[in-house]
């Protein structure tokens, strides 16, 4: 974490310089027109510059000085630059990430093979590969294109994409068959069928997304922009009609129209929602970039917005709700046997069992009864490994047959030997299942001694997490392959709202459809090919990077870490993005009140001196008042860039509290802050004007 922070800072300096350059380049009209609100400022800056030119040749209205026009022009150009800077900084982060990705996308030699015989035929440039080509990749070679493993198994270094240095296994068939271009085979070899056309690879998509090149405006961004454009249009009319109103008022009073065009330009720029207008695209890019930093790639910006709306999360039990592995919690003797006896044979049965469950049994026995010292190297031990047929494992030791296994299988095994299966054991097994545990029955010479209680360990803090989510109106549904009894117990302990037991791809799909029919938006994570239909149906579908190509294509996000808890983070980022937009819009609009109080008395001073009462900030002069409002308008953009990039504070509370909090901070804050700030700026400006 510390290291990363240091790295970010390093990046910051060079990134800021690049962003500074970029903000000047973005002054080109074709860039400016993409942002309608700022385009209005841009036009105003051009107009003011033009009027400045005229005034230098003494063509002026006699109301304002050239010096004033010059100051206004400078502030307006700065306003444009600040907005460009905000966007450039936001893009900068993505660019840095894209650069490192591009390094992975170099052209390499691809060994094309025949699709049927898989015999090597010809070497070609990786750029020439098309869909359905077959290629061979040997150890220490880079995989030239996205594809699916057809033959072979190999360990692959995917750090170029995931940043994770531990190699992963890729093999033909199953859920680990997808490979990504730009990753490197470390051992063995793979025959790969290319699944993407050139230029459309996963890496290309990633680069496009993080670079922002493919960044389309999202529906909500467009809707907000419509509001901002409409407000700007109203303010354009307000200022234009103000000119004619003042002309009419002046002619009623029989005087010359005392309003300068420059004043109106200043008023227009102050009123137009420039704060949110300038930061809108930065907010969007930063949201995407936060997602990328969480090692999640969204295939569209729309997906992030949907993440904010999600109100049903389908969470895989293993890894999200429980720690990956069950642990032995208790030895329960039956039929008069002692607990220590059970512990003893359970440990013996598990000595060679390398699974985490097995290890936990050995450890528990050691902890409870100090049983130790028996090594698996002892020649007398004959270990019986777990097989799919017997579903039991154990050890034969000095003519004693020790076994452990699932209750049903052990019952068969016991009965097959002509023994009676213990009824007390049945009861214990049932009890453990009800508690959400997994029972393993242990036997010695076909006699049931007792039961090992394997417990699913609920992750620390999940219950609180789910309670917070519930407050936000998000339901959590646990997906598990366990039987309903076990699932219900774990669900109750973890505090999820509901569970789907003995989940199959079909039942997942059905669950998603049912929730959607009730008007919910559903998010899920998936990896296997059989998850693809459910992923395609879900509103936010996160495919694990370790998963298959089919799963990745069906999802609208890819989690490079393949972490099951990522959904929670994605929802947070989505909500934060929307909240930032809303809060800054509120702030921007609330600002306008103070700007009116600064500018209106200033420009009507000559016409109706009594309007001076409205100058509640007691700004020193009309010139200073207008300049101060404009300066505030420009500086607030810079001041809010960090907030736009980081996003507003996110808390897991109900909508009501969120609204109250954000209204207080950004609504009331937006109303009050500019009054103070403009007054402060006015003090400085009037001091400067006095010196001149």
């Amino acid at each position, binding site marked *: 974490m510390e290291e990363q922070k240091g790295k970010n800072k390093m990046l910051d300096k060079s990134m800021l310089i690049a962003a500074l350059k970029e903000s000047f380049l973005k002054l080109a009209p074709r860039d400016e027109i993409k942002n309608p609100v700022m385009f209005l400022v841009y036009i105003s800056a051009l107009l003011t510059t033009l009027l400045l030119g005229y005034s230098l040749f003494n063509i002026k209205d006699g109301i304002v000085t050239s010096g004033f026009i010059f100051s206004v022009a400078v502030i307006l150009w700065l306003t444009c630059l600040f907005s460009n800077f905000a966007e450039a900084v936001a893009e900068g982060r993505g660019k840095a990430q894209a650069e490192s990705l591009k390094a992975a996308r170099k052209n390499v030699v691809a060994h094309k093979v025949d699709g049927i015989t898989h015999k090597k035929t010809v070497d070609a440039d990786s750029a020439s590969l098309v869909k359905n080509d077959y290629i061979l990749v040997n150890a220490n070679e880079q995989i030239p294109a996205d594809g699916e493993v057809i033959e072979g198994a190999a360990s692959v270094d995917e750090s170029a994409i995931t940043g994770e240095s531990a190699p992963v296994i890729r093999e033909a068939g199953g859920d680990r068959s997808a490979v990504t271009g730009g990753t490197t085979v470390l051992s063995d070899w793979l025959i790969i069928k290319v699944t993407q056309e050139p230029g459309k690879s996963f890496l290309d998509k990633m680069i496009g997304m993080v670079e922002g090149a493919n960044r389309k405006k999202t529906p*909500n961004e467009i*809707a907000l922009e419509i509001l901002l454009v409409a407000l700007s249009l109203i303010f354009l009319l307000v200022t234009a009609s103000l000119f004619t*109103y003042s002309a009419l*008022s002046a002619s009623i009073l029989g005087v010359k129209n005392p309003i300068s065009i420059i004043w109106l330009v200043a008023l227009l720029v102050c009123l137009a929602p420039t704060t949110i207008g300038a930061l809108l695209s930065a907010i969007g890019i930063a949201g995407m970039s936060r997602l990328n930093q969480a090692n999640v790639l969204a295939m569209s910006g729309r997906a992030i917005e949907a993440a904010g709306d999600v109100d049903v999360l389908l969470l895989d039990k293993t890894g999200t709700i429980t720690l990956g592995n069950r642990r032995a919690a208790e030895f329960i003797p039956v039929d008069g046997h002692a607990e220590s006896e059970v512990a003893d044979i359970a440990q013996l049965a598990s000595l060679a069992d390398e699974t985490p469950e097995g290890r936990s049994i050995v450890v528990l026995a050691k902890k409870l009864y100090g049983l130790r010292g028996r090594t698996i190297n002892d020649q007398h031990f004959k270990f019986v490994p777990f097989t799919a047929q017997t579903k039991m494992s154990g050890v034969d030791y000095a003519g004693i047959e020790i076994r452990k296994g699932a209750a049903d299988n052990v019952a068969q095994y016991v009965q097959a030997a002509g023994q009676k299966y213990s009824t007390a054991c049945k009861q214990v097994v049932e009890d453990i299942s009800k508690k959400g545990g997994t029972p393993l029955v242990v036997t010695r010479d076909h006699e049931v001694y007792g039961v090992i209680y394997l417990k699913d360990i609920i992750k620390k803090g999940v219950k609180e997490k789910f309670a917070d989510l519930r407050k936000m109106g998000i339901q959590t549904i646990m997906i598990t392959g366990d039987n309903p009894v076990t699932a219900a117990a774990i669900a109750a302990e973890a505090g999820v709202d509901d569970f789907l037991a003995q989940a199959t791809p079909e039942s997942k799909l059905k669950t998603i459809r049912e929730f959607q029919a009730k008007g919910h938006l559903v998010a899920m994570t998936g990896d296997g090919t059989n998850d693809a239909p459910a992923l395609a149906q879900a509103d936010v579908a996160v495919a694990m990077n370790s998963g298959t190509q089919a799963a990745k294509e069906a999802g609208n996000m890819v989690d490079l870490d393949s972490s099951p808890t990522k959904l929670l983070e994605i929802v947070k980022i989505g909500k934060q993005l929307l909240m930032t937009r*809303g809060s800054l819009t509120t702030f921007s609009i609330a600002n306008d009140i103070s700007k009116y109080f600064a500018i209106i008395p200033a420009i009507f001073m000559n016409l*109706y001196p009594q309007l001076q009462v409205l100058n509640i900030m007691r700004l020193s002069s009309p010139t200073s008042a207008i300049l101060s409002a404009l300066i505030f308008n420009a500086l607030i953009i810079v001041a809010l860039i960090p907030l736009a990039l980081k996003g507003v504070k996110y808390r897991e509370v*109900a*909508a009501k509290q969120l609204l109250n909090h954000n209204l207080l901070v950004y609504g009331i804050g937006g109303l009050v802050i500019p009054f103070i700030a403009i007054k402060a700026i006015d003090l400085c400006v009037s001091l400067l004007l006095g010196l001149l």
Partner: protein
Amino acid sequence: MKMLLQYLPYLILPLVLAIPLGIFMSKLVLGEKTFMTKFLAPVEGKIYRWFRIDQAEMDWKKYTLNLLSFSAIGFIFLMLVLKFQNYLPLNSQHFAGMSWSLAFNTAASFVTNTNWQSYSGEFALSNFSQIVGLTVQNFISAAVGIAVLFALIRGLKRTSVKLIGNFWKDIIRILLYVLLPLSFVISLVLVSTGVPQTLSGSRTVELVQPVAVNQDGAPIMNAHIDEKNKVVTVNGKKITNATIVTREEVPLYAQASQVAIKQLGTNGGGVLGANSAHPFENPNPLSNLVQITAMLLLPMALCFTFGYSLKKKKEGITIFVTMFVLLATALVINGLAEQKGISLAHIGNLNLEGKETRFGVTLSSLWSVITTATSTGSVNASLDSFSAIGGMIAMMLMQIGEVAFGGVGSGLYGMLGFVILTVFIASLMVGRTPEYLGKKIGPKEMRMAVLACLATPLAILIGSGITAVFPDTVKSLTNAGAHGFSEFLYAFSSAGGNNGSAFGGFSANTTTFNIALGLVMLLARFLPIIALLVIAGRMAQQKMTATTSGTLSTTNTVFVVLLLIVILIIGVLSFFPALALGPIADFLASH
């Protein structure tokens, strides 16, 4: 405090009547049977057969197209009636036809439910024009407003369909079940208070006391009249070109029925120029109570219709509360300002100028607020004589688009436009993409909502902004300075709010203003109608999203406050500079 107590019955009576009426109308929205169905269904059936009306439901395009053609035909018909009333029957006073520009203005005014009048009825309109022309539109334009709201409610309620109702069925049902019976009852009550109802025409009667007037027809003050020698003297000095008037014409029309629908349909166009300040339109405090109740009745009731139709009563109540707070605030400020009146040097405070003594200050200021808060625009006093703040409150109520109950249908659908804007910003602040009543607000819905909310400010700003620089504008003003500007601003605010009330003191019957104000009225009426029908259509096609604790609540206090702020901010931001040049400068000048 005493003032506020006086207001109470005027607010409680309409509320008490509005609740059952609202529930009744929700049955019309949903097409359910009512207690009147038994009697009216056969009539309804006959009308459908006569006009060969296809009773199938329509999508938003068809609904809008039918509505617009219906209004267009009504508009052209009315314009022709007014222009050629001299060739039409029931013109006992032999009035000439209106000028084209005035006919355009008046037709636009009545079709848009504005009822801005650049003329005085008793000096310009035949009985035929009054009844077949204006009264018909008073009913129809009100029904159109309610129909749009009905379609919008259906759009919000339905899921995954395109249909939002049948326009003709809505219009006929609203007329038959709501407007006609209610205005019949109100007419009867008004007749009982002394409002005339006759087709006999005006009557000429002897004056109790003769009056002297100058060549312009203005009464001569302190005149001493020698009737025998026909000589008029003032302070012993003979006035040469004075005329002695001994008889007057008493304007008798079918007033009661027209006054009933003018208030009930929030139309506001009076039979007489003086509108409800005239004793023949509004003779006493009882008729005053009846008329204020009639103005508030339908707009209030529709809030409950909204909640009941959606089976979400709280949503309707929230909107009712928001509107009520706006109205009550305006009442208090206006009331206080009028109690204080205008202070003039050497004279002191004046607050009865321009007000009828039978209503006094309280009831006049109450009326001025309610007539501008609803989209009625009828008047019982002269606003030109109100205090600067009193006039400003009336102006602001119109500039915010008349959503403090507002016009029949239009008040609530206008408010729903603001609700959508509020929901948009507030939803984002809780980290959700915006939705209202389970329907998403995407770019297209937003474009339409913005259009609906901003049509009024746009129309007012464009119309007044352009005409302000016309050289003749100054000549149309009576007062100098900021108060003169208020007269001008008020006219456009009234047209843009589809209100129709006049500040007075502004001569609007010029070609320029007739056309400019007419266009402003048409834009401010039909842009929001189209926009909201588009929203209705799009909402109907959507699925309903589920409500959770993460959803923005649109029924709590915070939402009411936020909605109020959005309305005020849009209103204030759009008109603060204009108000500064008008009433604010006016107010500050005298303080």
